[in-house]
């Protein structure tokens, strides 16, 4: 797992509700078998015309936000499909965190597995960041995972909740599978003790 500790970065506002993973990474790119290279396709149908030219009115094409690493979105960001390609495309594009009032559950898990921090801020704080990001040039915030806060130079100091164990894993960049395999004896014991896994006809 990629590490996340503290990150200061330029924010870019994409303040709509229910931005689904079909928008983040459209289906035509899901036939690839690689894990990398998806940044080029991030928000493809919103970023590009069918002929491949950039859409001037899409926020990620605005020079003002070039190099942004923190996406600020509306409620239920990443709802829909389980495609981890959504997290891969955001990280490959250069994003380190997404701030939103709420997230789709599967996307939330997928992003943490890829060192992309999903930050749940309340609506008021999210809207404040959006407003500053729109009205100011080069508006950055600092996300500190240890203290679970988002701060800026104008006095913003918003806190967010995150599961303590997930936080620990992100801070240390721990490998989930490795952690689970530390409990391998318990898995073996569970398998021996339970009949549940032996119910398929023809299997013993």
């Amino acid at each position: 797992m990629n590490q996340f500790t503290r990150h200061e970065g330029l924010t870019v506002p994409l303040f709509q509700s229910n931005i689904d993973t079909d928008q983040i990474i459209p289906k035509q790119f899901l036939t690839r078998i690689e894990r990398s290279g998806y940044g080029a396709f991030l928000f493809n149908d919103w970023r590009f015309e069918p002929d491949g030219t950039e859409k001037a009115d899409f926020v990620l094409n605005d020079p003002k936000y070039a190099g942004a690493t923190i996406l600020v979105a509306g409620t239920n960001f990443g709802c829909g499909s389980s495609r981890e390609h959504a997290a891969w495309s955001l990280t490959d594009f250069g994003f380190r965190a997404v701030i939103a009032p709420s997230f789709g559950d599967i996307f939330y898990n997928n992003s943490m597995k890829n060192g992309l921090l999903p930050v749940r801020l309340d609506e008021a704080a999210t809207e404040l960041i959006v407003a500053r990001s729109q009205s100011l040039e080069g508006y950055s915030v600092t996300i500190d995972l240890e203290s679970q806060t988002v701060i800026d130079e104008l006095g913003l100091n918003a806190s967010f909740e995150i599961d303590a164990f997930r936080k620990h894993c992100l801070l240390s960049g721990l490998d989930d599978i490795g952690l689970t395999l530390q409990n391998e004896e318990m898995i073996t014991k569970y398998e021996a003790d339970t009949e549940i896994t032996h119910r398929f006809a023809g299997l013993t």
Partner: protein
Amino acid sequence: MKTLYDKIWERHLVHEEAGKPALLYIDLHLIHEVTSPQAFEGLRLAGRKLRRPELTFATVDHAIPTVNRNLPFKDPIAALQVETLRKNCADFGLPLYDLDRIEQGIIHVFGPEQGLTQPGMTIVCGDSHTSTHGAFGALAFGIGTSEVEHVFATQCLQQSKARNFQVNVEGELPFGVTAKDVILGIINQIGANGGVGHVIEYTGSTFRSMSMEGRMTVCNMSIEGGAKAGLIAPDETTFEYLKGRTFAPKDDAWEAAVADWRSLKTDDGVLFDKTVEIDAATLEPFVTWGTSPDMSVTITDRVPELSDARDPAEAKAFERMYEYMGVEPSQRIQDIPIDKAFIGSCTNSRIEDLREAAKVAKGHKVSSAVDALVVPGSMLIKKQAEEEGLAQIFIDAGFEWRDAGCSMCLAMNEDILQSGERCASTSNRNFEGRQGRGGRTHLVSPSMAAAAAIAGHFVDVREWRFKG
């Protein structure tokens, strides 16, 4: 006192420790071509083995063509993806129900049909519509590719417990109102994020008298309400459906299993974290008009006006949806013409769905302005529909009759909407571009889709002229 979800959860706890997510055992892992290749690659890179290959089953569904399957794929990248799954299954010793198998189908149709999906199990798949399997009283949810790799290596997942959400629907469904309308009505009420962080248990007489096909349709779209999973307690209908299926327990093991499954229900008097009550008599056929599955109205209704929005943010979303969908505020739903109709997907491609659609199609002709497609959920369903004469009804009416796959639900193959085309679809997502860039999706039940295909616009199936 415990809910059904609590009980299944506890049965699968391998390890629990304060301050950490629980380690949950997974009984069945279903895989397909799209979300598995990177997980296999991860296993190889780490030199890890697949812990329980015999609990892992694969089929191909997302990227495959639904016509001319004997020919090479037109899309070389999709071909490579399917080839990669074949190689991975061979290398790791996994059964693959490939294109040449009669059992091949959409993964969430395949699992139940083969008797792999059983009450009380934990079931995962790298696909959000894994919630479908909750219809059997199994805890089933979609996972990302990192978690697919985690299950490969450990047969477990690290999980935090979700909250309990009860959706209780009581009463008989009115004529013309289907399971699809029930779930569209529920999502309309709770919103696209109403279930986030929750597992929904569907309770009440409406679900108890519903077929397994109907229950699967309901549980399938739990994710469209944001829920982690959907559940319906197993009962005689469940056992009847499962009995005799290939991987269902046999003989004494069957009797023992059923005895155990009967205990899988929420205790009387349990308090859910959240409850919604719906009277079935108030439900009508629904049609979505926007680009989020909660944006629906009944067939007799109109596209909402800006003043119907609950807040300024929703009003802004409405404006965007009017433009994308090419609809006007207060436009009558029945005045909206369609270009395509799609009957299929893991939501509505089972035999009962095809029977409902065929009843409407019988003796009619698809409008000359509409291209209509019927894509069965599995090759077994295709065969059954042909034996029952449903296929002939569709063909005579001018529908295309295809091979099994996800097809135009997500349009990863050539079954795709062109920009501006409008589709009456029995699938589960009306997101922008879901069925093709610029395509406009209206979610409906199979009978409503068939009726729209014939009329050329949305019509109220309750007033349909059934022939024969």
